[in-house]
C-alpha cells in the first residue's frame, strides 16, 4: 500500500447525502474474487444507462473529473453494506480521499485499511466545498490539515493510529501480529 503523506488535487462533488455502498458499487459486481478492476464499476448505475452507455451529465463522466483524486460528498457517505469493494472501487478509480461532514463507520474502517482517507469537516467547510466543485485542495496527513484554494487552512480529526498507518502505508495487520504474545496469553487465560 502506498504511503499517504500529502496530496494536492482538484475535487469531484457528489452533493447527495447518504450515498450508500450499494450506489458506490452495486451488488451484481461483487461476484469477483479479487480486488482489482472495480474502478470501472464505480457508481455504475449513475454512470452508465441501462444499455451500458455513459450518461454524459453524470459528474464522473465529465472531462473536468479526469485525474481528480478527492471526492466531496453529502453527509453520511458510505452507509449500508460492509462491502470493502466500495473502497476498492474508489481507489481503483483513482480517489485517495473522501470528504464529508459524516462518514459511516464500516466504510471508514475499510477505507483506512486501503490507504483511502475518510476526511470529515464541519458544516461550513463542507457547504463551501459542495458549492465549489473542482476546487484545488491540499491534504496534509501528518498535520491533519486541509488547505483551501484561498490559502485557508482547516484542520481535520484523524485517529492517531489511522494517521500512522496512512503515513506508513500499513493496514494494521502487522501491528496485530506484533501482539502475538498478548493474544497467546489471553487464550491461555480464557
Amino acid at each position, binding site marked *: 500500500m502506498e504511503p499517504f503523506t500529502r496530496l494536492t488535487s482538484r475535487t469531484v462533488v457528489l452533493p447527495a447525502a447518504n450515498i450508500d455502498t450499494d450506489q458506490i458499487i452495486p451488488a451484481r459486481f461483487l461476484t469477483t474474487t479479487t480486488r482489482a478492476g472495480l474502478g470501472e464499476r464505480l457508481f455504475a448505475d449513475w454512470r452508465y444507462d441501462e444499455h451500458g452507455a455513459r450518461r454524459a451529465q453524470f459528474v464522473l463522466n465529465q472531462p473536468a473529473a479526469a485525474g481528480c483524486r478527492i471526492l466531496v460528498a453529502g453527509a453520511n457517505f458510505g452507509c449500508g453494506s460492509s462491502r*470493502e469493494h466500495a473502497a476498492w472501487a474508489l481507489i481503483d478509480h483513482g480517489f485517495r480521499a473522501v470528504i464529508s461532514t459524516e462518514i459511516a463507520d464500516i466504510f471508514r474502517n475499510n477505507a483506512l485499511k486501503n490507504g483511502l482517507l475518510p476526511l470529515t469537516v464541519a458544516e461550513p467547510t463542507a457547504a463551501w466545498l459542495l458549492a465549489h466543485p473542482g476546487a484545488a485542495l491540499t491534504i496534509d496527513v501528518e498535520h491533519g490539515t486541509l488547505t483551501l484554494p484561498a490559502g485557508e487552512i482547516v484542520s481535520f480529526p484523524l*485517529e492517531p493510529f489511522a494517521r500512522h498507518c496512512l503515513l506508513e502505508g500499513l493496514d494494521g*495487520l502487522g501491528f496485530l501480529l506484533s501482539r502475538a504474545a498478548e493474544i497467546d496469553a489471553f487464550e491461555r487465560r480464557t
Partner: protein
Amino acid sequence: MARAPQTLFDKVWQRHEVCPESTATPAVLYVDLHLIHEVTSPQAFALLRERGLTVRRAERTLATMDHSTPTRTAQVFGGAPIAIDAAAQIHELEQNCARYGIELLGLTHGQRGIVHVIGPELGLTQPGETIVCGDSHTSTHGALGALAFGIGSTEVAHVLATQCLLQRKPRRLAVNLSGRLATGVTAKDLILAIIARLGISGGTGHVLEYRGETIDALDMEERMTVCNMSIEAGARAGMIAPDETTFAYLAGRPRAPAGEDWERALACWRELRTDPGASFDREVAMDAAAIEPMITYGTNPGMVIPIGGQIPQRPGDAVFARALEYMGLSAGEPIKDHPVNVVFIGSCTNSRLSDLRTAAAVLRGRRIASGLTMLVVPGSQQVKRAAEAEGLDRVFLEAGAEWRESGCSMCLGMNGDVVGRGQYAISTSNRNFEGRQGAGARTLLASPLTAAASAVRGRVTDPRELG
C-alpha cells in the same frame, strides 16, 4: 471496593480486551466466533497468502454460502447450471475451507443458510460472545446478548490471521422502549419506527442496547429482527440483554453448551445484564404501544411512514425529490393502495419460522393477486424443513407463491433473483437503496404481515384491514 456499574456492552467488551486502547493505538479485541461467506472472504484469504500467513483458530471460524447462491432446487440439488461467477465463488470458498481446515456448511448441507440465521439456530451465537462477519447485518446476533458487528474483507483477514481486531471503543446508546406492540404491529415495524426516530446515521459510532418491557416481551426471533436493522440506523451493533427467553431458546441447540457446561455458562450469562445505575453516552425513549405498521416510501430505510400516512413534503430538498422520482411516487400522496408487482418474504431480517408462519396465516385459503410475483425464501435449510413439516410450503404454493431453497436471494439480487426495472416490490428485507433488489427496482420495506396482506390484494395493504 465495589466496581462501577457497567452496561451489557461494557462487560462483553472488557472480557475480550487483549490489549486496552491507548491514545496512540486502538484496543486489540478478541473474536470468539468468526462467520465467513463466499462473497467477502476470497480477498481475505488472498491477503493471507500474499503475506505468508495462515488461519490462527480454524475452529473458531464457520463458513457458509448464502449471498450469491441459487435458490432454485434444481440448481442447488439437481445439478442444473449455476451462474459462472457464483460457481467460482462457491468453489473458492470450498478450496479455502479445505486448505485451512475451516468447517463449511456448503451448498447442499442440511444446515446451510443465511449466515445470520444459522448462527443462532445452531446455538453457536451465545450471550457474551464477540462475533464478527464480513457482513453488516452481523448485528443480528446481538439479540442473544453478543457483541456482534460487520467488518470489511481486510478485517476478515485480520481475524483469520490473529483471531483479533483493532477497535476503538464505541459509545453506548440506550433505546428504552415501553408499552406492548399493538395487534398487527410486529418487531419489523418496531425497528423501522426506531430508525425513523434515530435517523439513518443517528447510531453512527454507537452500540445500541434495546431495553424495556417491549423488548422483554419479544421472543428471540423478534429480537433478532430488531437487532438485525441496527446498522440501518448507522450503528454497527445492537444488543439485548440475555434473559430466560434467551436461555430457553438456546437450551438443547446442537452447538450450545450442555450438561455441566450449560450450568456454568448460564451462571456467566446471568451476569451480563446492564447493572442498575450504569450510564450510557446517550439515551432515547419511545412508546412502542403507539407504533403502527410501518412502510418505506423512499430510497433509504429512514424514509418510512405509518402505513396509513402520507408521503411527506420537503419543498426545496433536491435529494428527497430525486428519491421520490426514482420511486415514482409523489410527495403528499398516501402509500396505501399503491399497486405492487412483487412480494419478497425472506432475508436475515424476516425469514425465520415465525415470519413464515405469520405470512402463511394471512395466505391460508387465499390467492395472491393475479399478475403478482411472490417469492418465499426461508432463511436456512432447517427453517425450510421445519416449515414444510407444518405444511407452510403448501400454503404458499397453493396461494400462487414460489417456495425456494434458502439464501439471501432478492434481498440483494446477486443470484439472479431480482425485481425488474420500475417494478414495485414489498420486501421483508432491510434495504431499499436504489437498485438494491435489481437495477431500477423500487423497494417498499415492510413486515411479513404487511407483505402477505399486500400480496393478496396486489396493493399496499394495512394488514389490520384485510379481515
